[in-house]
């Protein structure tokens, strides 16, 4: 199965985001590289607003991802509650 990924800047803003992504995607593989973190998931990755809010303890708008996002792969679908990346949708 093809892998989708998201790469985020390595900083304090993204630490709880990475934890939330790993919680929602048990097959996630976290690669820590200089200044960045790349998360691979086979087939489909789901990023949920609620899970991020549990980790950061405040309301979160998924479009805030834009600020620390480096790159991604797969088809994107985004609404208020969920940001998904997938192949073969």
């Amino acid at each position, binding site marked *: 199965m093809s892998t989708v990924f998201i*790469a985020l800047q390595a900083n304090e803003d993204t630490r709880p985001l990475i934890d939330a992504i790993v919680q929602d995607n048990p097959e996630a593989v976290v690669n820590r590289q200089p200044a960045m973190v790349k998360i691979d998931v086979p087939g489909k990755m789901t990023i949920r607003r609620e899970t991020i809010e549990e980790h950061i303890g405040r309301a979160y708008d998924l479009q805030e991802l834009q600020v620390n996002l480096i790159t991604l792969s797969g088809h994107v*679908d985004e*609404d208020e509650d969920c940001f998904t990346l997938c192949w073969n949708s």
Partner: protein
Amino acid sequence: MDMQVAKKKLSLKEKYKLLTRDLGWDTTYHTKDEVFPYVKYEGIKVHDWDKWEDPFRLTMDSYWKYQAEKERKFYAIIDAHAQNNGHLHITDARYLSALKIFLQAISPGEYAAGKGFARMGREFPGVGTQVACQMQSIDEIRHAQTQIHALSNYNKFYNGFHAFADARDRMWYCTLPRSFFDDALSAGPFEFMIAIGFSFEYVLTNLLFVPFMSGAAYNGDMATVTFGFSAQSDEARHMTLGLECIKFMLEQDPDNLPIVQKWIDKWCWRGIRVLSLVGMMMDYMLPKRVMSWKEAWEIYFEQNGGALFNDLARYGIKVPDCVAQCTEDKEHISHQAWATFYQYGGAAAFHTWMPNDDEMDWLSAKYPNTFDKYYRPRFTYWREQAEKGNRFYSNTLPMLCQVCQIPHIFTEPGDPTKTCYRESEYKGEKYHTCSDGCKGIFDNEPEKYIQAWLPPHQIYQGNCFPEGTDPTVEGFDPLAKVLEWYHFDQDNLDFEGSRDQKNFDMWRGMATKNT
């Protein structure tokens, strides 16, 4: 009394619909064909423009909000970099050469992409497309600006950064990316989207802005990491737009498939040729290496590009033929490109050098099939010659590929000891290309590529000297005049003995001592 009614908050989908659909209206004074004259001639059939939607559903208010946030982060880091002598914190001054190539060859491409998307925003009839192109146009201008701002701090101290705008038009190796963008900008709107949205964004930028920038972080250059990652966060949106465009064309009409396939084949190869510069930057120009070109290629092209092609297979899209050759080329291109720049280091606006023993060992470990067999002996010989005072510079001009404008430096598939070139004839003239990929592109549109502005040809024709030059005077030195036209000021030659090397060592010494 007015009633206060709690306003229902709009959902993302509703907000996006309001932003886009209400902007589209039917024209009455002129026909749609008169208003959008370029959208049909490429042969792409579109039945319903409303099917094109930006999956990020970014509206203008959130676009400005998040872009402003990115800019604040960027300029805070740029300020800090300038204030703490960031230009002395890099691993060593050889690293600067990678930044010089970036500014001369890549930043002007960002600006060209900005111009292109501004035009596409006007040429496409779909409103979702127009909005996305407008945002991308602003993004690309922002990338050119942030790159120029970040690197202007280095320009205060080092050579090779001062004449990038003219370099884009004049410098022999800058016509490589320039020809890529000129080719895209002179194509129709749909082909442009494949050229930039697919090839530049999907194939190129992930390799340029991700592993190279990650490398910049470990070479101590926070200014470059920041502009790189900040740009790439926009590219994530652009890649999505490029992919959306491909899907849209393929879903609108089955007749679009052969046209799209031809563009994918062409632009995949063109993108890969531009990447030979990036391969060389990663394997040779980062003093502290974090990932080899080959490793980056495997992650971002083979795995990620492979996933994309698997996905597009359901529409009938095939993996481009050139990909098989690339699997072989990934072991060679960075070495062949660096060998070329080393030989032409007298005419490049950055410094070149031969790798030291540690670096050669790293290259052997990363390229066990090729480095020791084909490249180490040659590099060792050049290094020995340089140590004896015979640093080799080639003084002849190379023959360029009519399409990608790279000199004929790459080797024949299956034989890394034989130079590869192909020949085509058009209207009684011979034209040379570097590969089957470029020959195919030339043969498909010869009328376009015979117009290429090839630096060696132009130099021989006398078009690359400062105004008022008289080439008939006694003792005329053509190379010196060309370099003057390039605005060289000790920008060229070997790193060893360069002004950058001396200044960096002296200033770093001053930065760590009190005397």
